[in-house]
């Protein structure tokens, strides 16, 4: 049974290998039209060039998407089979020696129990839908084969990550996930912002990774083993040194902070939106960013042994949740709004972890994955159709794209925490748990909930309701914005149904069927929570939606850059249209709030702060070292030595005849002397 687990990450990995080899093969054999890994047959060569793309390249481009869908689907099926076996009472685990170098024995352990099974379903399920959506979204992209290879690599790495049962495998998968995230963010690497965003994401998360690595080193040093069960036994056991008890979980949490974009390492996530939108949905909303939360939940025994560490975790989570929710209010890029929303929701989960209710955090992770993926894919559908992603240039799309609008609404309601959508159940779980003993966290998260409801409603009202805005895509191509293809809206529909349904699965008043069936620990205090928390939370959510409706839907006016009401040039008979411009309420808000608004709008200037205080000094010191120390001091020493040698060699060079045999004779004579000495010494 355990051997089956290897197949789960291996199938997408095999697809990745096939695509890479296939692409490389076509490039090597010089298939015409196979520029890059594979080139776009139609657009790149152009109709006038007289060459037709290689049919093999075209076939590979078509096959790539479906192949990777099939790979992830197979992994998901295997995962479900394994999960059923686990529920049947079997121990689904694999533990073997990966390799043995001298005395070091590196294990390779995989395990699937309740938590991992849940993650496999989330990762596999969302992956399948996102791969499917990508088939439509990436159609015609130049590097589509490379894209699917990278996406499959990511799925494989993420599945390996959630199945890992020792820190070696975990760290391996952790870094693989980071690399594939980097590759995918920089997928449009010819765009400077995309390349920079990938680099930023990689370097920022690396700060956290160093912490994780140090934590792993500490564990090796302390326990001589990196298998989870040994480490957990150590953590709960007696007689552990006090400082390490706190330091190890905090170091591990650093890794989680990087991956899960918690303050202050969250700055990479909004920039990561430079990647293709399905990537944002899969990696930067549903799965990879949840890896940090999963990591903490998986290694929770280590955290449970250190209440001090848990407090730190809780504060970071709550602060992140509140901070990101406020920033979300002001963003003008759809994906940026959703990015900050993701950071905020991750903050909710981390707060729950810190408050000692990992089950609630994992449940929120589970529901969040579905509805946030839904929101991102909806945004992707809009961007794909309209060709723009700034709210200024979008509006009234609800009539044109009814399916997208409806599904997006489902996701938005879920995010706002309105029953019966998934987000309500998990958020209420967290808030209820906080009500017993963590009033500060509760207050912060309630405020964040209100802001959340407001910004997501704003997004929905501006983009889908109100008068239509003349989009750039329309004016350029004369083609009206239309609903996306079935391959794109089908995943949306599936995700929307999931969003409506999965919450009930883990709902408290139904007796936690999900948690029960997977054997997740309830993990602590006052699950369910007092009724007033639920009432207040829902009321705040509704209030946020209503205020947003008043602010954006009742007065859907736009303010153009010049400050006047933007007027449309709609032909007679068509519904009223307006030109592009900011939503009027945003402009008024900025006028009345002034610098406060700009502070929030710029993400509290954290990026600039880091740039000034960390990056700039670092670059400066490096530059100083390069110019002053390296060029003068080091090079001076090196040149000086070289000069000395040149001088000395002038005297000795007469010994060098250049005759090889003279040298050999000298060596042989030396051997003779040494051998004589050795023999004499041994006698």
């Amino acid at each position, binding site marked *: 049974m355990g051997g089956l687990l290897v*197949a789960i990450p*291996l199938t997408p990995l095999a697809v990745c*290998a096939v695509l890479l080899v296939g692409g490389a093969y076509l490039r090597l054999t010089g298939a015409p039209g196979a520029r890059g890994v594979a080139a776009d047959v139609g657009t790149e060569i152009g109709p006038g060039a007289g060459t037709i793309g290689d049919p093999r390249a075209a076939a590979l481009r078509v096959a790539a998407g479906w192949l990777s869908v099939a790979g992830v689907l197979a992994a998901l099926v295997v995962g479900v089979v394994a999960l059923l076996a686990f529920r049947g009472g079997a121990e689904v685990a694999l533990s073997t020696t990966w390799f043995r170098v001298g005395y070091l024995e590196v294990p390779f352990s995989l395990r699937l129990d309740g938590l991992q099974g849940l993650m496999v379903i989330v990762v596999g399920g969302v992956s399948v839908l996102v791969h499917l959506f990508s088939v439509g979204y990436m159609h015609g992209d130049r590097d589509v084969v490379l894209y699917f290879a990278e996406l499959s690599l990511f799925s494989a790495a993420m599945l390996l990550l959630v199945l890992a049962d020792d820190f070696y495998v975990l760290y391996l998968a952790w870094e693989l996930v980071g690399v594939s995230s980097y590759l995918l963010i920089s997928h449009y690497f010819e765009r400077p912002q995309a390349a920079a965003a990938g680099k930023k994401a990689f370097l920022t998360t690396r700060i956290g990774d160093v912490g994780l690595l140090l934590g792993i080193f500490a564990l090796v040093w302390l326990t001589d083993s990196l298998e989870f069960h040994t480490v957990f036994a150590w953590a709960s056991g007696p007689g552990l040194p006090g400082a390490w008890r706190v330091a190890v979980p905090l170091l591990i949490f650093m890794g989680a902070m990087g991956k899960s974009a918690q303050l202050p390492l969250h700055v990479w996530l909004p920039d990561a939106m430079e990647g293709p939108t399905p990537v944002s949905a899969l990696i930067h909303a549903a799965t990879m960013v949840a890896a940090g939360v999963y990591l903490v939940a998986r290694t929770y025994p280590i955290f449970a042994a250190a209440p001090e560490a848990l407090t730190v975790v809780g504060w970071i989570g709550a602060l992140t949740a509140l901070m990101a929710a406020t920033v979300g209010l002001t963003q003008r890029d759809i994906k940026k709004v959703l990015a900050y929303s993701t950071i905020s929701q991750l903050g909710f989960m981390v707060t729950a972890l810190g408050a000692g209710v990992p089950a609630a955090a994992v449940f929120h992770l589970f529901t969040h994955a579905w509805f946030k993926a839904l929101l991102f894919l909806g945004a992707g559908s809009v961007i794909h159709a309209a060709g723009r992603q700034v709210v200024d240039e979008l509006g009234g799309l609800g009539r044109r794209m009814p399916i997208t609008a409806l599904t997006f609404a489902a996701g938005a309601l879920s995010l706002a925490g309105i029953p019966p959508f998934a987000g309500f159940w998990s958020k209420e779980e967290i808030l209820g748990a906080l009500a017993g003993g963590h009033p500060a966290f509760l207050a912060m998260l309630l405020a964040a909930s209100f802001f959340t409801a407001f910004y997501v409603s704003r997004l929905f009202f501006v983009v889908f309701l109100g008068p239509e805005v003349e989009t750039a895509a329309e004016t350029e191509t004369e083609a009206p914005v239309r609903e996306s293809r079935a391959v794109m809206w089908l995943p949306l529909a599936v995700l929307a149904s999931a969003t409506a349904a999965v919450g009930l699965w883990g709902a408290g008043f139904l007796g936690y069927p999900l948690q029960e069936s997977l054997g997740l620990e309830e993990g602590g205090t006052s699950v369910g929570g007092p009724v007033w928390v639920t009432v207040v939370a829902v009321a705040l959510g509704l209030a946020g939606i209503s205020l947003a409706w008043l602010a954006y839907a009742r007065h859907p006016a736009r303010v153009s850059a010049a400050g006047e009401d933007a007027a449309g040039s709609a032909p007679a008979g068509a519904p009223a249209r307006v030109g592009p411009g900011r939503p009027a309420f945003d402009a008024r808000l900025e006028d009345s709030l002034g610098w406060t608004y700009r502070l929030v709008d710029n993400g509290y200037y954290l990026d600039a702060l880091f740039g000034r205080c960390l990056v700039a000094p670092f670059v400066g010191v490096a530059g100083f070292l390069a110019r002053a120390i390296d060029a003068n001091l080091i090079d001076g020493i090196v040149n000086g030595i070289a000069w000395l040698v040149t001088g000395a060699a002038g005297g000795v060079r007469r010994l060098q005849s250049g005759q090889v045999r003279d040298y050999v004779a000298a060596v042989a004579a030396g051997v003779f002397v040494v051998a004589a000495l050795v023999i004499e010494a041994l006698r």
Partner: protein
Amino acid sequence: MSTVLTLGEGFGLGVVAFTLVGAITTVFVLLERRVSARIQMRVGPTRTGPHGLLQTIADIVKLLVKEDVRPEYADPVAFRLGPMLTAVPAVLSFVVIPFGAPLVMRALNVGIVYFLAVPGMTVVGLLLAGWASYDNYSFLGGLRSSAQFISYEIPRTLAVVTVVMLAGSLNTVDLLDAQKPVPYIVLLPVSFVIYMATTLAEVNRIPFDIPEAESELVAGYHTEYSGFRWSLFFLAEYGALYAAAAFATLLFLGGGNGPVLPAVVWFVGKSLVVVFVFMWVRWTLPRFRADQLMRLAWKVFLPASLVNLVLAAFVMMAVGS
């Protein structure tokens, strides 16, 4: 006394192996002529003896009585050494082939590596023959054969390594037990394909026969040879062909394993099928160009065999645990 016996046994086995190779060559030359005739819709030799069965014998007699011609400028030592060094490894290969469980000359603990290593000496002979003939065609043939051999040896070895990993032994006799229920062709089909293709290259047969491509090089490294020395090349070629087929049988087809009939019958039967496949390929496919040949080895077979090896290792690890 036992000293003399042991040494005598070794000598006797050598004579047996050499005789075996001679007999195999005699039979295979006839077989090849008949198979090629069938494929080309001809009849083949029918006149000498019943159904032409004695044709090869007649040819051998002719070859043995022919004059041994040596070109004037040929290097005398190397010219004589070349054919011998080519034929000896083919004979030596037979030492480790288990025709039946007890019917093996020496069950070496490293039999499989031995089998991979010994044919490598053939190349020395071919290079010498080509160089000694003092003839551009021969020289080119010799160089080509060594380049080809070295290139195809790597994927071939890697393919065999998967078998060794699965069997956990380098002993040829242990392989038979390891393949008792299922022969390895079922478990390692990719290795089998790589082994068969690279083996064709190792024994210089079409479609990999550029060292002796008659349309370009007259006859390659044996252009200048005649009579008995030339027949040594023939001996080497067919001896190596049968050894390779026998080894394919051993590695992938379960050797002498099989119901009812004695192991020897199964082994010879299976290996003859492999030999027939080799002949079939030879008379069906055209020849590769020299550059295509190299590209095939380094860009297709080498990566394919590496991927195959890694995948096989992973699968074995997963299944084994």
